[in-house]
Every structure is written in structure tokens, then in C-alpha cells.
């Protein structure tokens, strides 16, 4: 993995010295803050018996669409410049003629977006702190929820990394991965639509909705983690091959 660390640092640098990461994180936190606010207000207004055993943390992670919608937009925008911009500006030539291998380049770039993604979620821990001061928090639920949020995002970012390597236009890269993520997400929702059968089973298996719903009840299914790992590794593998293939263009 020669070259991983300097490229990782440079990518983080590029994300944070330009407004991109700040704009995305700010937009994300505004959105999730509003989302959390709605949930808390709802819980405050509702009387105890109507709620069952659901708490605001469960609702936040497992029961609203608002958790995913920003991810479908923000993940493609975090990853769009990774390779597309380097190819457009030609800097890919200096990068790939340095003594680094393609796997290190791809992993370093991907890891930088993943770190940014994690940083984007970090302030939402404050919501948990707020809940913990006024009521009880199931820390197991918090743990599994964040694990799943990171696992799902890791897959989305890997898909975005791949589309960024397939084109030299940032916009095309972002649009391609946004379309891909939306299709994947919608297909997952097919578990509520399709009749019983293999298609529905597959839909259930890839459903981010069900994964987060389980996680918000403290459940982690190892099969889902294996699926998440596939969604990370397969696009990254394709990206490595694409980067290697440029030499033969």
C-alpha cells in the first residue's frame, strides 16, 4: 500500500480547503437537524400509550425516509471529483507516474471520502446526548444504528468512486452514481411491493430501509454486513481495474 497515506491526506485536504465538503456537511446537518426536530416535536406531542416501545432514536434511524434522502445526493457529490477531476485536469498523469500502485490510489481516495462521511455524521451524536439528558437511551441501538449508517454509506461512496473513474466529467460522475444509488434504494423498497418470490427475497436482502429498521432495534444481521462489504469491494475492485486499464487506452 505504498502511497496510501500521502494521497489520503491530500484528498482530505482537497475536500476541506475547497468549500465542497463544508457545504455538503452544513447542508446535511441542517437537514438532519430539521429531521430530528420533527421527530422530537412529534414525540413530545404524543401521549405515552401511542408510542409503544419506540423512542426518538429508533424513529430517527429506522422509521423515516428522511435519513436516506440526503445520502443519495451527498454521497455522489463527495466522490464525484476523485478521479474525474484528476483526469480532466491531467494531474492523474503525475499521480500515476509516482511510485504508487493503483490499489493504493483507489483506496486512499475512497478512504478520504469515507472519513469525511464519518465526520459528517459525528455531530449528530449530539442528538443522542440531548435525548440521554431527558430520557433513556439504548446504547446498543445507538451502536448498531451508527454501524449500519456507516456501512450503507461506505457502499454508496464506493459506487460513487467507481463512477468517478468511469468518466472525466464530475457532473456525469455525480449523476451516474446518484441514479445508481436511487435505483438500488428503490429496488430495496421492492420488498414491500413485489409478490413473494426470488425477486422479493433479493429486494429484501439489498434493502437499506430494512437494514436500518433492524439496526434501530439493535439488530445486526451478518448477512447484511456481508452484502454491505460486497457493495464496497466490488465497485472498488472495478475502479482499480479501470485505473489500471487507462494505461492501455
Amino acid at each position, binding site marked *: 500500500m505504498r502511497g496510501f497515506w*500521502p494521497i489520503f491526506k491530500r484528498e482530505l*485536504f482537497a475536500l476541506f480547503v475547497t468549500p465542497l465538503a463544508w457545504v455538503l456537511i452544513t447542508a446535511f446537518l441542517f437537514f438532519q437537524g430539521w429531521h430530528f426536530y420533527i421527530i422530537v416535536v412529534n414525540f413530545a406531542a404524543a401521549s405515552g400509550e401511542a408510542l409503544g416501545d419506540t423512542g426518538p432514536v429508533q424513529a430517527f434511524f429506522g422509521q423515516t425516509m428522511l435519513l436516506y434522502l440526503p445520502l443519495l445526493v451527498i454521497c455522489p457529490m463527495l466522490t464525484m471529483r476523485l478521479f474525474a477531476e484528476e483526469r480532466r485536469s*491531467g494531474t492523474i498523469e*503525475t499521480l500515476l*507516474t509516482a*511510485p504508487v500502485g493503483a490499489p493504493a490510489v483507489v483506496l486512499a481516495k475512497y478512504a478520504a471520502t469515507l472519513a469525511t462521511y464519518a465526520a459528517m455524521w459525528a455531530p449528530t451524536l449530539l442528538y443522542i446526548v440531548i435525548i440521554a439528558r431527558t430520557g433513556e437511551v439504548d446504547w446498543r441501538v445507538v451502536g448498531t444504528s451508527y454501524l449500519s449508517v456507516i456501512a450503507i454509506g461506505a457502499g454508496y461512496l464506493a459506487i460513487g468512486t467507481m463512477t468517478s473513474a468511469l468518466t472525466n466529467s464530475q457532473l456525469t460522475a455525480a449523476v451516474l452514481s446518484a441514479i445508481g444509488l436511487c435505483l438500488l434504494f428503490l429496488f430495496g423498497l421492492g420488498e414491500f411491493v413485489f409478490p413473494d418470490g426470488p425477486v422479493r427475497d433479493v429486494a429484501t436482502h439489498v434493502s437499506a430501509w430494512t437494514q436500518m429498521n433492524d439496526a434501530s432495534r439493535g439488530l445486526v444481521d451478518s448477512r447484511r454486513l456481508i452484502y454491505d462489504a460486497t457493495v464496497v469491494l466490488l465497485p472498488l475492485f472495478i475502479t482499480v481495474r479501470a485505473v489500471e486499464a487507462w494505461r492501455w487506452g
Partner: protein
Amino acid sequence: MIEVERLSKSYGAFRAVSDVSFHVERGEVVGFLGPNGAGKSTTLRMLAGFLGPTAGRIRVGGHDIAEEPLLARQKLGYMPETSPLYPEMRVREYLTFRAELKRVPRRVRKDEVERAAVDARVDDVAEVLIGHLSKGYRQRVGLADALLGAPPVLILDEPTAGLDPNQIREVRSLIKRRGSEHAILISTHILSEVEATCTRALVIARGRLVASGTIDELRDLRRAQGARITVRGDERRALEVARGVRGVERASVEDSSAPLPGTVVLAIEHGAEGGPEVTEEVVAALVKAGIGVREVVARAASLEQVFSELTRGENEGESEGGA
């Protein structure tokens, strides 16, 4: 230090580089000369490991670029043609990043960045954002990048393109100074650049190596020149006289450029041996034959002519081929 054997690169049916072989040793500054589109950049990109060859072998610093790509690239400082850089970084940040990427040990990294910046004359802009730099400065940041870690092999693709005359002089003197420590290959389409900095030159045209030799040999090629003589009188007679002079290899009438009615322009070419004396003799012979000589313009072969000369020579089997 650089060994290239039978290198070819095809894009579909188009052969960009075809069967090129040469060596560059330590202490040599070799000019890679050719018109635009001749395959210079493609060849250099293959040497730098950015493009994979269709056929042939490349060894850099003793490492095969296909079998040990990382070791080979470690020995190499490469400056691409347009010197692409990250506009959002400061010069020092960029060079530090590149030094780390090139595995310059941490304890000497700062000094190494400083040294490369001073050598390439970018130390005065070390804290400036690359996006704010002029083309000349960017070009030299690319050069500083190539110098980082003092690699034994330097490959510079048109290092002086876009520089002003003072900067060109500085870059050339830097290349000359460094010549003894490295094996340097620089590409250019400017013949005088090769004369100013290189010990040897390779000439490439249409993807093929058409000549290679020392600068003196190249200068001889350049002296293969002629003259344009504007005469008044019978054009067939004038041609006959000119062709009769020893040393004249070719004489023809330039029909397009007769300045006045009744005059013609003769174009004569002579070999490298004769030189201006041949022109003198042609003029004397013309005058003796009663043909009025209006104007004589000595004509240095342009680079394009040298190239066409060289490619013609290749077809006649006269080229030297490899180095």
C-alpha cells in the same frame, strides 16, 4: 539508465510509435526531437509508465517498467507536457506531498523540497497557491517535482514550453548542471534547444526513429542547405548552368514566387560539404553565362526540411536507425 527496445504503441489501426529503440546513459542529456504529433509525448508517457506499450520493452534504472513498475518509477523524475498541478495547493504543500509520495525519507524531506524549489527557481513562490501562478512558474513547479528525491533518470516533456527567454536560459542551465548526475531525456520540437542543452539527439518522425547522433552530426544535417537566386533570362538555360556546378544536388524553379515579369527564382540545394562556396560558384557560373543575377538569399534548412530530409533518407535505407 534508460533502455528502450523495439517499442511500439498503437491506437486501434493508428501506429503512434513504431519500433523505437535507444539507450540513454548516466551523464547524458539526450534531446528527443520531432515535429508536433511525431509520437514524442506518447513515447515519454510509456517511459514514465503512464501508458502501456503495445509491444517492446522499457527498462528504467535497471528495472523493467512492466515487471517492476514501482521500482522503475521510483528511479524516475517525470515532468508531463502541460505540467498538470493541483490548483488548490500551495507550492510548498504540493512539493511536500509529492516528496512523500516519492518516498523521500521524512528526515530529509523538508530539505529536499527546499533544494528542488531553489533549483527550479520557485522558492520565491513557495507559499503561493498554484492556481494563482503564471504558466512559467507552474512549468517550473513541475520541474521541481521531477527533481525531488534526485532520481537517476529525468524525463522532461518540453520543459521550456511557455517560458520567457530568461526562464528558458535558467532551465537550460539547470539541465546542463544536472546533466552529469542523471540520465536526462528531454523532448522538444525546437532544434536550437537541443543544440543548447543536449549531448546527443534522437529524431522521431511519424512514430519512427529516423536519426540519432551527436549535436555535431545534427549541425551537419542543418548545414545541408542552399540558396534562392532570382535571375533574369532564360529559365531552362539558367537551370542547366546551375546543375552543371559541382556540389549542387538539386536545382529547380520556384514558380510561385517570381517577383517581376521576366525573372525566375531558382532554388538550389547543396550538401553539407560544399557550404556557401557552392552558392558562390553558381552565381559566378550564371553571370559568366550571361544571365542576370538580381538577388541571392542563402537558405538555412528549416527544421521541417531537416525532418523531410531525414524521413526521405530513411526510405532510401540511409538512416542510422537505433542509437
